[in-house]
């Protein structure tokens, strides 16, 4: 069976920490802070943190829990689209 990369969320949160994002914060401000930081999203692939944050649903992110929920929501939406759900 092909091995799948499933550590994106870990690397996302590490990148958020590196960007010194604290809460509450607007999505726009978070994107600004994320300048130049990349997230490992596959075995051989990185994605700019700004790109990931820009896709989050809420305009205002109240706390760390909401950030994670928003991240998972956006990831699930991407997967649905990819699978033609």
């Amino acid at each position, binding site marked *: 069976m092909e091995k799948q990369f499933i550590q994106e969320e870990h690397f996302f949160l590490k990148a958020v920490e590196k960007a010194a994002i604290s809460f509450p914060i607007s999505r726009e401000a978070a994107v600004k802070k994320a300048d130049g930081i990349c997230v490992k999203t596959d075995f051989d692939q990185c994605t700019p943190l700004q790109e990931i944050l820009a896709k989050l*649903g809420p305009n205002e992110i*109240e706390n760390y829990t909401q950030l994670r929920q928003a991240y998972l929501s956006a990831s699930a939406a991407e997967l649905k689209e990819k699978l033609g759900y």
Partner: protein
Amino acid sequence: MSNHGGNSAAIPDIGNGILSYSAVQFDPISANTLEEVDQNADRILQWMDRAVVGNPGCDIIVFPECCFQGMAPVNWLQVGIAINSVPIQKVCAKCKELSVWGIFNPWIKPEDGSDIENTAIVVNDQGEIAAQYIKMNPALSMEPTKPGRDMVVCNGPKGSKIAILICADALYPECWREAAFKGANVVFHISHWPIPGERMWKITNQAGAIFNSYYVIGVNSVCTDEGYSFFGGSMAVDPMGMITYEAPRGMPCVFTGAISPMAVDAARISGSNLLWTAYHRGACSADQKGVGLDLSDYTFYSAHSGEEN
């Protein structure tokens, strides 16, 4: 905050952020007279002196429910006291003398002649009453006091945001949750909890901590009055529901501990926040876009709010 609310405007010195507490598993006399109430007050003072010897530098000393009067099942109407009465003045002065905060539970007789109020008072280290909380859920089978209307949360020492639950309050999840929603990071559950309720005591303290991610310090009486026996078993519970200390049953004692109330606040902002997810249900699903659903799908609250007495 209501008319019985806490000191939300005054934020005490946070210091090192570690709250050192002493919990007194007290054995009140079941008072039939005001003289016996005064005797209980004097015994409270003795235990406060002991507490600072065994736990030098402690920030707060906590006594169980009914510490001034016992349950007073015989003459309860005769032993209610005023908020500015001598027994209360004594414990306030002692807090100031020792530079400690204190939590005490007198049965207060209102000046307007209305029913007795089972009242917890938080006294600061200047000897001032920083907050009052009236028990919202009097024990229906045995306690004819007036129910309170407001869950009070007040700023305490070392970054603590203190809520107090009094005995039967703990049997109603709404009290625990209301305290959390008002920002409490530590709940002092003060009780006159009788046998055979040992398991209820333990489970409710742990469940309160787990469901709301805060510390719970349960302080229970230990004595036998004209009708009931109170077993002790006071305990400290961390925000994961682990009992970090459990006092003996059946003996008066004082135990100590240290907690980090601000770690609770930090976890709510920068860690896992069960309260937030309670009213943002399913936020991580694709369709909910990181926001989720609120509490309006629960019919209990809407069905029972605004009902007339």
